[in-house]
């Protein structure tokens, strides 16, 4: 038997799992590399095994999907076609003369390095939540909507007793209903958009009956738990000294400005807030893949513009789990054919391509409706912390632009340190770009995670010996273009 070509799939959420199963089924050996102790990603996150949860709390259709994926993964792992590496935090993937090396750090401590070599790489790195700043958003008790959900799903804990869920986007509905069902009092759901606008654009919605049913279920859940829903409203301030005690909300006019005289205070110990999501693109950028705006560019086969690298799911643009499943399947099929030296036959994945097209239209319709208030930056006072890691205020960012002439995010960063801390600008990037009046683009980060210097110094040592002199001239692959102050040191 000839050796199966080897694909490294990074990320075990919906896209990565679908890709892994499709690729293994069609003849590849797959190493599925994931940071979590269990597969599933954020969407299929399950309670930790030790908690002994017996009642699955995910909707029936997604539960069935998860059970199918997990059974498939178990089957291919037992057959020896898939290796599932848990607790592996990938910080870099690089192209070698033949194939790729994926560099990871092991366990929550993330100190011990692991390298995986493969013929191809499939990026299913997912996304993370975007939060725009407002006065008081750094107070303990202010969490992201997705964070509150992740802690509930994984740890079976609530962030507090009385919660306001706020921001914009379809995620707020399941977060509000989930927290309420688990025992929190949800004092209000505050949405800056007006989702009723969806009804005025019925075509993409009508084509997605499953989504319609999902929305109806959440609406019923809000009613059942008597959650007050305020549309076209926003949180203008979070109050408290050392922890959150209340928020002030206000109505928005049609231009997205706060309407005078509409402010009201809601007592709460928790604010779960989110303004949409952003793709994780660091590994793609490290490999030299084209990124359009904030998302990895892919073709109809989910190939990036770097040969041997595929991408699927949120990394290629935020679109939800169903879209990620379709894209992952297509990417896995394409990789299986191409790495075996064959030309893929797209009619084999016609069903997935069909749902991908419909779901992309649906996502585009949602994007046209859910948006943060157009004038969110008006709420950011000069004293509001914008970069949470480096404690850089809105005033400092504005001063860098108006007094010091910074015309882009990078210059603002060099002048103020905004985006230079632990999170590397993931939390403040959108806000800094908005305050500086720049378009939002994916930041270039040499590494996807903090890396101990000792690991960095040794990474690829053996490869360097046989390959360094024959380097193929491909991009600045070791992040040599990185400034020293952007590299995290050892902890």
């Amino acid at each position, binding site marked *: 038997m000839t050796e199966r070509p080897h694909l490294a799939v990074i990320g075990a959420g919906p896209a990565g799992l679908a890709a892994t199963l499709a690729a293994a089924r069609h003849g590849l050996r797959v190493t599925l590399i994931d*940071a979590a*102790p269990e597969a599933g990603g*954020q969407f299929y996150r399950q*309670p*930790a*095994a*030790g*908690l*002994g*949860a*017996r*009642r699955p*709390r995910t909707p029936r259709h997604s539960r069935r999907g998860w059970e199918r994926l997990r059974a498939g993964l178990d089957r291919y792992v037992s057959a020896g076609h898939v290796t599932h590496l848990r607790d592996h935090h990938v910080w870099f993937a690089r192209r070698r003369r033949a194939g790729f090396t994926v560099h990871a750090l092991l366990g*929550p*401590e993330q100190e011990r390095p692991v390298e995986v070599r493969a013929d191809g790489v499939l990026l299913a790195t997912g996304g*993370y*939540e975007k*939060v725009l700043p407002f006065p008081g958003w*750094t*107070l*303990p*008790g*202010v*969490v*992201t909507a*997705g*964070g*509150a*959900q*992740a*802690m*509930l799903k*994984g*740890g*079976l*804990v*609530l*962030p*507090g007793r009385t919660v306001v869920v706020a921001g914009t986007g379809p995620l707020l509905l399941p977060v509000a209903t989930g927290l309420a*069902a*688990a*025992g929190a009092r949800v004092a209000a759901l505050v949405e800056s958009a007006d989702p009723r606008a969806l009804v005025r654009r019925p075509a993409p919605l009508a084509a997605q009956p499953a989504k319609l049913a999902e929305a109806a279920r959440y609406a019923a859940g809000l009613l059942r738990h008597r959650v007050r829903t305020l549309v076209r409203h926003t949180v203008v301030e979070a109050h408290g000294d*050392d*922890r959150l005690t209340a928020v002030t909300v206000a109505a928005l006019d049609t231009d997205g400005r706060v309407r005078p005289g509409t402010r009201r205070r809601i007592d709460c110990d928790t604010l779960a807030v989110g303004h949409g999501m952003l793709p994780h693109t660091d590994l793609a950028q490290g490999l030299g893949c084209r990124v359009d705006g904030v998302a990895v560019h892919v073709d109809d086969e989910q190939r990036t513009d770097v040969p041997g690298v595929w991408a699927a799911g949120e990394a290629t643009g935020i679109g939800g789990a169903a879209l990620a499943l379709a894209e992952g399947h297509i990417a896995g099929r394409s990789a299986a054919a191409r790495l075996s030296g064959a030309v893929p036959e797209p009619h084999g994945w016609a069903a997935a391509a069909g749902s991908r097209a419909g779901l992309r239209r649906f996502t585009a319709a949602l994007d046209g409706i859910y948006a943060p208030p157009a004038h969110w930056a008006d709420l950011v006072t000069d004293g509001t912390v914008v970069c*949470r*890691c*480096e*404690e850089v205020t809105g005033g400092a960012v504005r001063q860098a632009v108006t007094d010091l002439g910074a015309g882009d995010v990078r210059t603002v960063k060099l002048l103020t340190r905004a985006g230079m*801390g*632990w*999170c590397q600008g*993931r*939390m403040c990037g959108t806000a800094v770009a908005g305050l500086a009046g720049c378009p939002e683009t994916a930041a270039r980060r040499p590494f996807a995670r903090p890396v101990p210097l000792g690991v960095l110094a040794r990474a690829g040592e053996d490869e360097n010996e046989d390959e360094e002199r024959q380097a193929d001239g491909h991009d600045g692959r070791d992040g040599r273009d990185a400034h020293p102050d952007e590299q995290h040191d050892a*902890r």
Partner: protein
Amino acid sequence: MNPLEWAGARPGPAFAVTFDGREIEALPGQTVAAALWAAGVRSWRTTRGEGRPRGVLCGIGVCFDCLVTVNDRPNQRACLVPLRPGDAIRTQEGTGHHD
């Protein structure tokens, strides 16, 4: 209703850990952040610059706001690190390297 009832959970036996010397209970599989939330604790770090309190923000390991000292190792992400019996969690002041 609480989250454990909601999920029909029958956790393994609870165990003791400490937070700033005070004993708190944790359940098997819970992260540092989950056990602290369950104990009613919302912040366990102060910032380097202004000394302001912080706790969980993103809950998935991206934001690094929930950094904490566990068994004398600073800068651990509370939302990722699972607890073991006897673990000593301490509030992290600033960089965590001064104390």
